[in-house]
């Protein structure tokens, strides 16, 4: 006999190729050994794959303490003008409206009167922008609040880019104007700017 294994045994094992169906289930290329954003991690102690900056450091190029664009201040003083990098025109205001409606309107209301949905729901009292104090406030103040927050309001610097925050500030000025057509209450250069923008 040349056949070591009898044919009968071979025949009985004919079902074995069916096992190949099961082999389609390996997932090593689906879940590769790399981190994607927002993944949990069991390597880092805090459980995050996305790393926070090391304490007391800033990313290269992100620390611009002397730039009005990034801080809303020049030499420690709040700026009264939009920084030179931002040009006031209709598209800036249109963009400002989109950002304002997404990020600020839930609390401050679509008209900036402090009557947003959240303010209406709970104990959160949100001030109106349409007060004499805020109408005459330097634009840098709004930028600073939007960036770093104030008292009970959290800062939005981490979520909204500096350019977008300036667009919001310009739009808030337009809102103030729309609710109080008394243009004379604004600083003169803002007056001409807001007029030109509308």
């Amino acid at each position, binding site marked *: 006999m040349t056949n070591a294994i009898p044919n009968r045994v071979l025949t009985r094992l004919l079902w074995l190729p069916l096992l190949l169906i099961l082999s389609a289930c390996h997932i090593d290329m689906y879940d590769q050994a790399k981190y994607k954003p927002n993944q949990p991690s069991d390597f880092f102690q805090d459980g995050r794959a996305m790393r926070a900056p090391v304490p007391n450091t800033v990313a290269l190029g992100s620390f611009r303490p002397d730039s009005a664009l990034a801080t809303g201040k020049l030499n420690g003083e709040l700026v009264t003008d939009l920084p030179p990098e931002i040009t006031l025109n209709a598209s800036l205001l249109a963009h400002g409206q989109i950002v304002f409606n997404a990020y600020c309107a839930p609390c401050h209301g679509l008209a900036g009167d402090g009557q947003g949905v959240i303010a209406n729901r709970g104990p*959160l009292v949100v001030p109106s922008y349409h007060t004499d104090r805020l109408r005459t406030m330097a634009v840098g103040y709004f930028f600073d609040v939007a960036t770093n927050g104030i008292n009970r309001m959290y800062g939005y610097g981490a979520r909204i880019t500096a350019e977008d925050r300036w667009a919001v500030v310009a739009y808030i000025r337009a809102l103030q104007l729309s609710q109080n057509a008394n243009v004379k209450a604004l600083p003169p250069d803002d007056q001409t700017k807001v007029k030109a923008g509308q």
Partner: protein
Amino acid sequence: MSAQIFSRTANAYLRVSLIAIPLLLGGIIAALIGLYLSPWYTEAGVAKAQPIAFSHAHHVSQLKIDCRYCHNTVERAATAGFPATETCMSCHSQVWTTSPLLQPVRDSYQNNTPIIWNRIYDLPAFVYFNHSIHVAKGVGCTTCHGQIQTMALTAKAQPLYMGWCLGCHRDPAQNIRPRDQIFNVDYDVQSLPLAERQQLVVDYKIPTDGRLTNCYTCHR
């Protein structure tokens, strides 16, 4: 006379198995395909439990909060991202401050530990996907993520199969909407006549020369 090898019934066995074996194989394949497409495997339409009972129905359709408030990188980056605990706290440090449902949020904020949400949409690592291009070219959130404003717990709208991506990449005009309606969850894509949608495809300079269906668009 030699012994009879096959019994009389052998013929019947043969005939039956000639039909039964292909039927069985076909059945197994059909069952596997059915399984592959079923919600049990794809998890489409099945709401997942989360560490916090966060409800889009509540925050999006009742409170009218824009997607960007929480998924703020969606216009700029590949990922839409999950909201930082601070984002929740910007409201919940003031409203519903004592709700037991929000205890994990407060713990996370105080102890600086992440909230680990159960991922709902998760592509295999060999697929490249980017939100910002879709949002910039007029594909709205609800086109891919379904009626999220009605979901108390988030569920997958569809299984994210390759055929689904390709279907739209072959004929984007079916699902394009004006850019200012991207975040509008109540917008109906079909409400704009096809001709105008085709015009949008031209206006947004979406390539229709087959570039979008090249394998290396998504597998790079």
